[in-house]
Structures are given as structure tokens and as C-alpha cells.
């Protein structure tokens, strides 16, 4: 048996990724807070794929318990996919530090706390892969969501360093940078159709990139070029944009 551990498994991207890996022969640990809510979904994956799917309780913000959780997994996973994220509200976070902290810790500190443990184990075992779902928002700070963006930017940097550290240990790290994705997180937003990916497309891109040991994948792919342009705009000009 070969388990993949998906953290933040309630998100739409995570669910699409879970189906994709199970369809390709992997067993699954689905980890989330209030994992009882994942029972219907895990049942769905079991019927579709006839693979083993286990729901496990995990709150990565409960930092001290992350190690306990990982030690409790009888069979260690071949790979870990982190799909934890919290978009938050930029304006609220400017006046409310609790919101700020929630954005930073969910998108960054919690992920780091968890991946530190995974990295040490994979490094020792000299095998495994880690997929971190960051965001194009981390490529440049925009006034409309720079708190989320800065946390994702930190995550991107962390994953980059981790990739370099684990390279010699035969452990691969993939950074995923989705653009707009049609999920519960973005319901009600007026997203441009041609630039918006469905979760199933994101899952396909992640699976392909991970299997081919890619380092960074933008999804949809067009975001690589959009962000290249966005990054190349000089700061004196960029600060005047209303985006």
C-alpha cells in the first residue's frame, strides 16, 4: 500500500487532488479539522476507486500536536500535499490583528510547523515528495490582498529553500501557484472565465507536475506569463494601480 497524506482535505482543490491520486492507485489519508465532515467524501472516493481512504483529525495550528499526529500514522505516507489556506479579508485584517494573525498562521506558520516534521522524516528515509499549494498572490503584493499575498510569498520562499535542502536526499518539493480557481473560497467573486481554473484542472496540473518532478507549476499555465508581466512592472508605476 502507498499512502498520500492530504492536509486541508476539505478544500475543493484538495478533494479534486484526492480523487486524482486515488484514481491513479494511491491510498489516502485525508486530514482536516472536524474530519467527520469528510466521511461522505471519503465514501465517494472509495466507491469510485476501491482504494483505502482514511479520515484523520488534524489542526496544524495546534503546533505542539503536529508531531504527535505524524507519529500516530502507522504507515508513513509516500508524499504529502498541503492544501491549507485562508483567504481572509484584507480590509478587516488592516484593523483587526486577530484576522491578520489568522491569515499569516493558516497560510504560513502552521504549514511550516507541519512541514518541518515531514521534511525531517523524508530526509531520513531519503524518499518522498512534498506538494505545497501557494498562490500567484505571493508573487507580488497588491493592495487588495497583500496580507494573504505576503503569507503565500513566505510559503513560496520556504518551499524553495526546502527544495534545495532536500534535493540531495532524493525528496522532491513542488510549489503550486494557482491563479483564480472556482471554489467555495471564491464563490460570489466575479472571476474572468478564461483565467479561472476548475479544481479538477488544478488537480490534473498538480498530479502531472508532481509525477514529473517539476519544481514550480502555475495553474492555469497562462498565469506564469501574466505574473511575469506583473512582476516586471516598476514599483513607481505599480503602486498607482488600483488592483
Amino acid at each position: 500500500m502507498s499512502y498520500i497524506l492530504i492536509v486541508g482535505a476539505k478544500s475543493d482543490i484538495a478533494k479534486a487532488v484526492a480523487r486524482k491520486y486515488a484514481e491513479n492507485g494511491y491510498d489516502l489519508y485525508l486530514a482536516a479539522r472536524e474530519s467527520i465532515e469528510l466521511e461522505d467524501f471519503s465514501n465517494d472516493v472509495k466507491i469510485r476507486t476501491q482504494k483505502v481512504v482514511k479520515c484523520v483529525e488534524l489542526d496544524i495550528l495546534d503546533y505542539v500536536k503536529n508531531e504527535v499526529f505524524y507519529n500516530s500514522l502507522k504507515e508513513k505516507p509516500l508524499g504529502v500535499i498541503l492544501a491549507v489556506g485562508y483567504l481572509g479579508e484584507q480590509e478587516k485584517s488592516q484593523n483587526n490583528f486577530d484576522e491578520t494573525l489568522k491569515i499569516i498562521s493558516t497560510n504560513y506558520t502552521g504549514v511550516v510547523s507541519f512541514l518541518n516534521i515531514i521534511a525531517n522524516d523524508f530526509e531520513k528515509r531519503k524518499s518522498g515528495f512534498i506538494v505545497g499549494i501557494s498562490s500567484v498572490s505571493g508573487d507580488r503584493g497588491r493592495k487588495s490582498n497583500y496580507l494573504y499575498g505576503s503569507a503565500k510569498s513566505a510559503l513560496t520562499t520556504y518551499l524553495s529553500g526546502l527544495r534545495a535542502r532536500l534535493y540531495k536526499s532524493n525528496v522532491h518539493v513542488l510549489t503550486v501557484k494557482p491563479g483564480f480557481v472556482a471554489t467555495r473560497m471564491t464563490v460570489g467573486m466575479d472571476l474572468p472565465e478564461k483565467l479561472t481554473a476548475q479544481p479538477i484542472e488544478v488537480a490534473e496540473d498538480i498530479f502531472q507536475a508532481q509525477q514529473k518532478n517539476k519544481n514550480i507549476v502555475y495553474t492555469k499555465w497562462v498565469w506564469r506569463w501574466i505574473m511575469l508581466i506583473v512582476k516586471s512592472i516598476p514599483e513607481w508605476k505599480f503602486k498607482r494601480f488600483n488592483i
Partner: protein
Amino acid sequence: MRLLSWGNYPKIENLTFSFYKNSTLRHIIDKHNELIPYGNGRSYGDSALSKNIIKVRTYNYFLNFDKTNGLLHVQAGVLLSEILDVFVPRGWFLKITPGTKLITIGGAIASDVHGKNHHVDGCFSESVEMFKVMLPDGEIVKCSKQENSELFKATCGGMGLTGVILDAKISLKKINSKYINQITIKTRNLKETFEAFEEYKGKPYSVAWIDCLAKGNELGKCLLMVGDFSDDGNLDYQTKNKLNIPFNFPSFLLNTLSVKVFNFLYYGKVRKKVSKQIVDIDTFFYPLDAIDNWNRIYGKNGFTQYQFILPIETSFNGLEEILKKISNSGKGSFLAVLKLYGQANDNYLSFPMKGYSLALDFKIEKGLFELLDELDKIVLKYKGRIYLAKDVRVRKEVFEQGYPQIDKFRSLRRRYKMNNKFNSLQSQRVEI
């Protein structure tokens, strides 16, 4: 936001709502009117278009499968293609499937779709053991042929106008192969076409492609394809790479000449009067699914499909008259599909009846709707009716005459206050 139907016509602004839980759906229904459920957007006309659209596609869990009897329980947003991907390799197939697998279970029930085996096995509702539907007041009701049978008969074929279908149990059938043994019969005119249908009606699957631009003594010539599953034990089913039509073609590409050339080549490539082939499930049942966005070949103005059925007694004369009218108009299509049907069922608005149905695609252009109005008159003269899942323009009077149970449907809608809550452009046009 502009959510379109498969015909890319009409184009209207709408608000869309998705749901993952019943409680969310209840809230949407409570807060809004002029709602219509929307599956995977494959109905051709305006039956799933309205000011407010409930997208059901995200509600897509498999709930249970009982391998002792092939009973599959799924949520309404599951696509037929997802079911095939999972179950063909395990030796199961849909009892009833239409000519595309890219539709949801909810849509299949709401249009009470049918397939190449209608003359033997009937409509999709024949494979539905039970379903649950959420009514305007948020109540969830279980329906089957035995339980709440009125709601069952109204909802199967009811075009989403009775509420939102949540989940359904459907029975699958056993197969031993992903291949179909196909026989192709080439006919020279309508009389031969009818004789061929009659001769091969024992075969479980049959459909004919008909050259609707042929005239004179070639009127009604066709390629009839019949078949049944092979028994070779090969169940290695995988969807092949698809072609894609990346943008709308300029609409002048599709004209009388190009359709004539296509028809000539398509018909001409079959040499023998009767020939045999072995083809896979996708080629036999879902030939058009191999091309993503094939609807774009009709250009940005969109297209419609005109599908009618005539009772068996009047089919020959009626089809002859209609084919003459179409070939004289010069407005033909690549896809003209003729099919023999079995007995009608009891559902209030199901399309099939014992007889022949013809389906033709037309790009939307000047003069088209006038031609279709003319065709409507002939359909009515021969006691036929129009298929709502394809329709975008039929008049109320024409529609009503074809569906004798329409008043039962209307009064049920009033009784449950569905008419205040669920409406599509189509339901408003034909006043159902």
C-alpha cells in the same frame, strides 16, 4: 455572468448559485425566484436558462454501489462519464444512455433522456429506482414509481420545473466487453430506410444518420447503424485524447455546399450495402464527445436542434413531407438523426412515443424560425410532438397539442407552488 446552453443561443445575463449542502440549497430557494437547475449545460435551448440559475454540478458524490444488483446511488451532479469511467472496467454500463455522456444524472432525469435502445428498453426513468427532490418549500421528497408517483411522473421529463433533484438510485446493466459488434446498412431512399429499421428492430441498439439534403428518389437515404455488446471480456476502458474546437468558427463556413460535401463523403465512405464493424463504447454511443466544444462550428450566433417525433402510423408520410421541405429550403445540417422508438411511458412530459423521431441541427440565421414554424405545422398535422430538451423556439399552441398530459403537469406545479419558484425561459414561453 452569462451562462449559456449548448446551442449558444439565446445569450442572457444571469446569476448563478452553487451548493454543496442541502441547507445551502434550501437557502437559495428560499431567497430567490425564477430559479432553474442547471447540470452540465448540454440541453440545446433555453430549458435551463433563467434569471437565476442553480448549478448542480458541484453536488457530485457517489453514495453507494450494490454489486449484487448493480444499483448505484449518486448525487445529481455526477456526470454519466464519471459513472462509465468507474464502472465499465468493472463490467457495468448504463441501462439507458443518450448520445452524450457529458450530462449530469439530474439532467438525465429532468429530460427523461433516451438512447439508441429506446425501442427495446425505454427512457432513462426506466433505470431510475428512486430519486429525491427538493420542493419550493425546502422539503425533500423521495419519489419512485410506487412512492409519490405523481411527483415521479412529473419530475422525469419535467425539465427541472418541479424542484431540484438531489440524488438518485439508478440500476446499471452487466456487460462483458467495451466493444460493440456493429452492422451498418446503407439505404437508397426513405422506403428502404424504414424497411431496414423494421428488419433490424430485434437489435438492442439502432440509429440512422440521414442525408437531409438528398432530393427526389434519393430522399431519405441513410446509414443505419445497429449493434449489441460483444462478449470478448475486454473491459479496458479509457477515454481517448480529445480534439478541441478552440473558438467559434465563422458562421459562413457552414453552408449548403459544405454540408453537401460532408454528407457526400460520409455516405460515400461506406461501400457495401451491409457491412460489419467492431467499435468501442465511445465511438458507438458518444461519437461527438470526441470533439470538445463541437457546438462552436456553428459560429457565434449559435444553433438549435429541431427534434420531433411522429406516431408510427403517420411516420412515413410525415417524414417524407418534412424532408422535402428541408431539402428544398437548403438549410441542412451535418447531423440528421433518425430513430425508431418503442412505447411511450406515463410521465407527463416525456418525449418518446411509438414511432420515428428525426433530429436536425440548424445554425441560427435569418429565416430559420419561419422554416421551423412551417415544420411545426406538418408535425402537428401528423400528430407528432417536439422535444423540450432541444427546443428554443416552439410556440405554446404547438407544444401543447403534442403533450396530452400537460394539464396534469400544470396543475401539479400550481399545487406545489412550483410555478412561483422554478421557471426557465422555455417554461415561460410555453406557459408550463
